[in-house]
């Protein structure tokens, strides 16, 4: 094998490991999927609003402001994310696509006097990716390179919440408190197969699988203060994993090699989640217009991550009693540093920016929402574990949201 062949072989082999550990439902961002029909189409600026079942996710204190019992459900009827690694397969781009249908939120609110109870099921992050790609003559020494990748990465969150007014009559305005406790389960399965045929009639084949199971507890505390048309919400949240299990199996075969390689590794190291703090402001200008914004700050608990923040703005405007429009803008910043030349850490840094639009039609007790969420970003990545080479990376994501709410 020539030196260049060896180098590319190395790149491809290590790329396999990189792919296995980096899912499109990535752990480097915290707002990959916005939850709830109304909330998501306001760019997720919902910490000071939260007066429906989505409050369990955004700010449980807001649930005490819910006007009635309600049932909410929302789904991303189309979700597509594309990531392009520039000039990664030789001089060619490596493009990864994730498409799925997600019923990503279901929540119920029940008011019992001053107490508001809620339960929800949410999928805060998910990706299903399937790729069958062949590159012809990607380099001078390789005639073709084929990869088959299938990844399913789904995080489920079942939450219970309680909210109620506190200090009634003792302070100006209305103050409510809320708490949510959730069970989090993540299942990650990835299989990656690659085959390289060289111009000298030799070939290489690699196969790897990675499975990860994580179980944890998510806790969120919130306060919401409403004074006339203004509302301020704050939350603090953290997720603690109870257990984690990762199994990686790698099998490689190469023409002429004396030893084929089979490796199996397991890990029970638990990911550390950041402390999340949010503050949100809302201005209920009238019965037809609402403005809201959120600032989120994440304090990293993981040495490989850094502190990061996000900002979101949202507005809701009623066209008439039966129809309303919503708009939102949000950031989805990376929790990783930008990769540095010569330092190999397999870092990927993309700061994402998103825009949302939603339309809701209301009837007596129910409403149906259709929305569109688009986000995009560009950054840098080290797709290979060796060499520390840096490549540009671009990512876009689009979701069509549909939700239904029933109040009673």
């Amino acid at each position, binding site marked *: 094998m020539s030196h260049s062949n060896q180098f590319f072989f190395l790149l491809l082999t290590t790329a396999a490991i990189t792919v296995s550990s980096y899912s499109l439902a990535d752990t480097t961002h915290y707002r990959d999927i916005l939850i709830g029909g109304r909330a998501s189409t306001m760019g997720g600026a919902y910490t000071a609003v939260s007066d429906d079942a989505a409050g369990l996710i955004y700010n449980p204190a807001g649930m005490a402001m819910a006007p009635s019992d309600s049932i909410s459900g929302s789904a991303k009827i189309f979700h597509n994310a594309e990531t392009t690694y520039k000039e990664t397969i030789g001089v060619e781009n490596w493009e990864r696509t994730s498409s799925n249908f997600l019923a990503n939120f279901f929540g119920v609110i029940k008011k019992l006097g001053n107490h508001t109870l809620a339960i929800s099921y949410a999928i805060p992050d998910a990706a299903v990716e399937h790729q069958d790609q062949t590159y012809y003559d990607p380099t001078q020494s390789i005639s073709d390179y084929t990869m088959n990748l299938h990844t399913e990465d789904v995080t489920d969150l079942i939450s219970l919440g309680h909210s109620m007014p*506190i200090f*009634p009559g*003792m302070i100006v305005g*209305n103050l409510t408190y809320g708490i949510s406790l959730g069970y989090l389960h993540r299942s990650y399965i990835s299989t990656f197969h690659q085959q390289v045929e060289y111009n000298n009639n030799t070939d290489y084949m690699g196969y790897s699988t990675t499975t990860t199971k994580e179980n944890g507890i998510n*806790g969120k505390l919130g306060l919401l203060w409403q004074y006339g048309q203004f509302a301020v919400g704050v939350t603090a949240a953290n997720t603690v994993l109870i257990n984690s299990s990762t199994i990686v199996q790698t099998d490689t075969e190469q023409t002429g090699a004396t030893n084929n390689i089979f490796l199996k590794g397991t890990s029970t190291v638990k990911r550390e989640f950041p402390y999340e703090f949010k503050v949100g402001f809302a201005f209920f200008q009238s019965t037809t217009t609402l403005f809201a914004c959120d600032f989120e700050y994440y304090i990293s608990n993981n040495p490989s991550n850094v502190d990061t923040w996000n900002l979101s703005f949202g507005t809701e405007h009623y066209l008439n009693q039966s129809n309303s429009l919503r708009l939102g803008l949000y950031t989805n910043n990376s929790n990783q540093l930008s990769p540095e030349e010569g330092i190999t850490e397999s870092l990927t840094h993309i700061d994402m920016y998103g825009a949302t639009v939603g339309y809701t039609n209301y009837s007596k*007790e*129910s409403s149906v929402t259709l929305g569109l969420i688009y986000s995009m970003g560009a950054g840098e990545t080290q797709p290979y574990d060796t060499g520390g080479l840096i490549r540009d990376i671009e990512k876009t994501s689009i979701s069509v949201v549909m939700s*239904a709410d*029933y109040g009673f």
Partner: protein
Amino acid sequence: MKKLIIMASMIITFLLPAIGATTTTDTVNEDARKRLHQLNDGGYTQDDVQAEIDFGKKLAAGILGKTTILANKKMNSYVNTIGSLLVSQVGRPELRYHFAILDSDDVNAYACPGGYIFVSKGALKLMKNEGQLAGVLAHEITHVNQRHIVKQLNIKAKDDSLNSNIAAVVGGGSTAFFTMLNQGMDLLFTDGLKREDEYEADAIGLEMLTALGYNVRSYYDFLEEVKRSNEQHKDQVMNKTHPSMDSRLERIKLIMTQNGLHQLNGNTNQPRFSKYVTL
């Protein structure tokens, strides 16, 4: 240090409800959050009224499941007569009102949507004249006329729209009626109506008494009697479901003074009251 701050803030937040929570009927004022589609535009359809009547009928049945009607035809008939007199002037024409005495020593009165109104034997015992009875009935009729429970529980006819059917797929629509019934019972026996609704019922009730020539002061006197009774019997339902009697009396006094009602010498019809109410 960072973890310490987080832990401390979590503990404080956990303790907040214990520090600040009360068992009163204080509720969050959501008015500023009202969205256009949630506004009650007054456009109740015939189906909505029927839904209100059906709901009220079942709620009344729930009350009668707890307490029976007093077995005294003459007295029930008298209360019905006074109630009918009031609604003939100020009632909602689409409703047929029903009045009855509950065989309960608890001092209270209840208004169910659709026009089902009850006054307890205990309340009648405290009354001294017809003006006081008329005042209590006028208060309860106002709850019905102003649709206080209807609005609070958003009682309307079944929504057969496409949206509703889509939402029904999400689930739960069929349980809504029974959930509302439970909430209605909670409003009457545990949580009470909104404070503003109680104050409004007092104020409009006074207008009714004035319009029909009753002595307005008699209603004030009755509430003072109830206050004394509530102080002696702390477990009375009214103590849980109504604003403090002091705040009600204060507001009534203000209304009477501002409108010169305290100077009117209306009827109390005490002899007629004594003839029919013999407890």
